[in-house]
């Protein structure tokens, strides 16, 4: 009978440990995100022969913005004020769902890949609405452009997620990462295409270079920056932080689907630590790749963006089809 008395303890301890794992993963994604952005910026400056501002620069920016007071435009509705919290909140929620460090996430079953796309859309819609709320032409223009890019990128994202789901027979992110990470090495043509397609989607969704220049302040061409023009102080800090988390999360999805080796499958201390180390290593490589790509590409004209995203969609569809033709 002693066994039955230890079982609940075991169960509670297990849950506690899983909760800690979840907390560790969410916190590491949220607090690591600005460093990742700093690394990408550092690589870009080095490649463009500029003196880099240091890897911690995004943190300094965030701290400065958090200390400053908020200036609200006249006529700003409550929607404008709650949007930064909604954006940051949905990114934090997404950080709890994407298996970046470990796949053993208690929150995991709450939302699958399709719900995750929904969470990102929620943040985007509020961002667009708040940009239109003030009524400045630039915010309005940026919001419209963002929505255009989003509606073109979303079908491609769904097809990529479906391809990964077909192979692993589940739409749950943790299960996908576990199945793809646990298999012995096989070359899936569909995964090669899905990875390429998803990389194009990352560039488009996170306002990176061929679609939008993240460091531009030229009103006529900017998309993401135009939406944030009216924000200041802690609101701007939350928005910027949110978008850096989003960039990290997209890369985490890429990693957990297509490079899932090294992600921890259990919530042990060593597992979490090695999972984190692997994540940092992969992000280090991918961040360098992103910087090289961004330094070699020129920004596309806005009317070429549909072509870019049509290519992403096409790759995703080929991935989807080649799963049925070549792999079954």
């Amino acid at each position, binding site marked *: 009978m002693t066994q039955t008395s230890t079982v609940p303890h075991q169960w509670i301890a297990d849950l506690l440990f899983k909760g800690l794992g979840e907390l560790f993963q969410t916190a590491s994604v949220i607090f690591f995100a600005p460093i990742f952005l700093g690394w990408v910026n550092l690589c870009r400056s080095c490649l463009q022969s500029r003196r880099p501002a240091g890897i911690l620069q995004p943190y300094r920016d965030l701290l400065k913005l958090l200390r400053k007071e908020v200036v609200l435009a006249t006529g700003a509705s409550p929607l404008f004020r709650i949007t930064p919290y909604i954006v940051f909140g949905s990114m934090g929620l997404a950080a709890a769902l994407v298996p970046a460090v470990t796949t053993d996430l208690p929150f995991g079953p709450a939302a699958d890949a399709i719900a995750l796309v929904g969470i990102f859309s929620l943040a985007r819609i509020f961002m667009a609405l708040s940009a239109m709320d003030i009524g400045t032409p630039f915010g309005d223009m940026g919001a419209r452009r963002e929505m255009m890019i989003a509606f073109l990128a979303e079908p491609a994202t769904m097809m990529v997620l479906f391809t990964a789901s077909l192979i692993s027979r589940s739409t749950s992110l943790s299960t996908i990462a576990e199945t793809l990470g646990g298999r012995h090495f*096989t*070359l*899936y*043509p569909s995964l*090669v*295409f899905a990875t390429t397609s998803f990389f194009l989607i990352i560039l488009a969704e996170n306002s990176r270079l061929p679609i939008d220049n993240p460091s531009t302040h030229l009103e006529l061409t900017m998309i993401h920056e135009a939406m944030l023009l009216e924000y200041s102080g802690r609101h701007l800090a939350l928005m910027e932080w949110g978008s850096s988390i989003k960039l990290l999360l997209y890369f985490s999805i890429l990693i957990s689907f297509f490079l899932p080796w090294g992600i921890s499958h259990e919530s042990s201390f060593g597992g979490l630590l090695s999972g984190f180390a692997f994540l940092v290593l992969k992000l280090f490589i991918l961040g360098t790749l992103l910087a090289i790509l961004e330094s070699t590409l020129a920004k596309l004209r806005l009317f070429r963006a*549909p*072509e870019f995203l*049509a*290519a992403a969609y*096409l*790759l995703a*569809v*080929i991935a989807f*089809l*080649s799963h*049925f*033709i*070549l*792999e079954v």
Partner: protein
Amino acid sequence: MLPAHDSPFGVEMVNLLGAFILLVAFAMLASRRTLSLIRLFAFQGFFLSMSIFLVAFLSGESNLYYSAFFTLVLKVILLPWILRDLSQRLKIGGDIETLVNVPVTMIIGIGVVVFSFSLAEPILKAASTVTRSLIGVGLACVLLSFLVMITRKKAMTQIIGFLSMENGLLFSATNATYGMPMVVELAIALDVLIGAIIFGIFFFQIRETFESLDLKYFEKLKEDEE
């Protein structure tokens, strides 16, 4: 006949190369410049020759080694060189005018791929080669090359579409029946080479007569019906 190798990794590699060939076919559909089209054609030839080489290794058919070699020499080195030389002499390296805009062409291309995959489904059951699942890919390449020919105006790009169609045919033949008889393959290779040279002469004639390589001027050759 050499011994056949049964390796799942090899089959996966052939599948991957097949997928790359399909991808290049799509890239050709999307490309806007003659020179990049020629480069893509060379890439397609390279992937094709690699895949024939691998199929030869997997099936043990020694004929296919020759076929892979001819493909490499002819389609990766010789034909792109002739085409590039022609386009430089004709000064047509620049933009291609398309009849339908590029995103729409690509959507049509997806439809073509779905159609050819479903068309290949019954053929798969009849074939007995290790790489039979690629018949659909070969068919899709042929039809996509047709699409390249249909959606472009200039004679040069239509010829590249035609040559890439031959790539698709060779790919289908390799994967469906381990290639055509050697004599037939050699004859086709020679045909394509001679064809490319004759087309080159044609281009100069066409341009001399119409002062353009745009094929819509051929309409002038019709006699008035009134």
